């Protein structure tokens, strides 16, 4: 099995997932190097992202949070290194990606429904089956939206929900989310967090979220990947053990608050380093 070809990471962070390599790694990043206009962003970077878990990425501005998921999802090419998904290459893997800027990520010439179905069309799913699958996803997520509308006629939150559904409809093995709620107002952000949490519990898909909001990053995550200033290293990768579904009470939970301030300390240490 190709999976065995991935060498284990030496050092403390692999064990952060728990004893005996549980949960197993889904995405393995080895020897990742990326320079951007002479700036070294990643230098021999190694990372395991656990399968079926929600990982958040948090770190100082410009440390390469979004760059990391863009490299993993193939949106930008790597200079060096290997990234595998359970031993498979990117082209053998179904991934979903949700952009920060939903306005520029959805296709305004298609209705919301067709936007979602387009992802299946690209996977060569015949149209009747594609329609059926979109309908199934809609009822499974309990989404109450008029999907015959065009994206520009919808609110920001609705558009981002359509974006997420477009990414989910192909039943991706991994879902990447690049600051998906940062263009939404606070009320909508809170609502969308709950939606995303529900979707995660519902699908159990491996999710990787880039966030600039520490509370959001910890609240949604099973594991919080804290990055240093560039060239980025893993500053910490703590487990968030709070039970799901999480709610407002979780935010006030002592364990949660402690973990959050632990992350904040690491973050500040890295910022001022």
């Amino acid at each position, binding site marked *: 099995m190709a999976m065995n070809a991935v060498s284990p990471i030496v050092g403390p962070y692999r064990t952060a997932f728990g004893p005996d390599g549980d949960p197993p790694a889904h995405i393995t990043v080895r020897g990742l190097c990326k320079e951007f206009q002479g700036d070294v962003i990643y230098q021999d970077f190694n990372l395991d992202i656990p399968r079926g878990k929600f990982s958040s990425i948090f770190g100082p501005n410009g440390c390469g949070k979004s760059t990391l998921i863009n490299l993993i*999802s*193939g*949106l930008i090419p790597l200079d060096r290194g290997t990234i595998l998904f359970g031993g498979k290459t990117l082209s053998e893997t179904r*991934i979903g*990606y949700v*952009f920060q*800027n939903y306005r*520029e*990520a*959805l*296709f*305004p*010439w298609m209705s919301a429904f067709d936007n979602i179905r*387009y*992802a299946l069309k*690209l*996977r060569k799913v015949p149209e009747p089956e594609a329609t059926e699958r979109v309908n199934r996803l809609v009822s499974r997520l309990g989404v109450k939206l008029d999907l015959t509308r*065009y994206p*520009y006629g919808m609110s920001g939150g609705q558009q981002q929900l359509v974006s997420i559904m*477009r990414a989910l409809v*192909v039943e991706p093995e991994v879902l990447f989310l690049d600051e998906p709620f940062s263009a939404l107002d606070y009320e909508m952000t809170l609502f969308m967090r709950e939606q995303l949490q529900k979707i995660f519990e519902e699908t159990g898909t491996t999710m990787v979220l880039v966030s600039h909001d520490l509370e959001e990053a910890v609240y949604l995550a099973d594991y919080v990947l804290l990055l240093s200033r560039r060239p980025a290293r893993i500053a910490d990768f703590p487990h968030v053990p709070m039970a799901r579904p999480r709610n407002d009470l979780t935010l006030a939970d002592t364990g949660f608050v402690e973990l959050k301030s632990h992350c904040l300390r690491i973050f500040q240490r890295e910022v001022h380093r």
Partner: protein
Amino acid sequence: MTTLSRFDRYLPLVGVVGMIVVWYIGYWMRIVDPVLLPSPDATFAALWKGMTGGRLLYDFTQTVIRTFTAIAVASAIAIPLGIVLGSSERLYRSVEFVIDFFRSTPASAMFPLFLVIFGVGNATKIYVASFGAALVILFNVAYGVMNARKTRILAARVMGASRWQVMKDVVLMESLPQTFVGLRNGVSLALVIVVVAEMFIGSVDGLGFRVFEAQQLFDMPDMYAAIFAAGALGYGLNILFLLIEKSFVHWSGK
């Protein structure tokens, strides 16, 4: 946008009525020689008579046919070419100067050259108008393709779209609003060139010819009527292309 009140909707009429009032005053007070400025009613009577079965209608139709033929020829060449040039920024940059140069050259200055090449027939007028319009369309299509939102292209690519699918499903659609801007500017320019060309030697019909002939015959009501007909045509073409644009690219500007 503020909602207009019931009366505000009629605000555009103020300018029209104002213009006619000033015109009447000028006419009655003999500010302008009545030979040069006929009364509004004489002008509109000539316009009405000409457009309802008169010669003006025929000339109007000829100009419309030429303008549409010109824009069709221009689109057939410029849209595919614009897509090809726009899909490679380096390719476009290498021909940009030539396009910009000829786009800035008044197409009317090319008319004598076209006369030499194509002769004094109908085709010359159409080709010179096509030439002007094609460069405007080409420029807009190429920019529409080049300025396709990167995020949308990435979104399609991350969903597994091939280069061809990205081109066909995303970039082409992305360039449509700009393409329509080009078509709208192109048709205005084509009309200008057609009307100018119709004033040249060898013309026997068209609005330009009508204006020119009425002027030669000192038939001022007819000349003004032809000018108004040309104005109405230009305005109408713009509205027509705006309507097509609205129904084709409903997402434009949203």
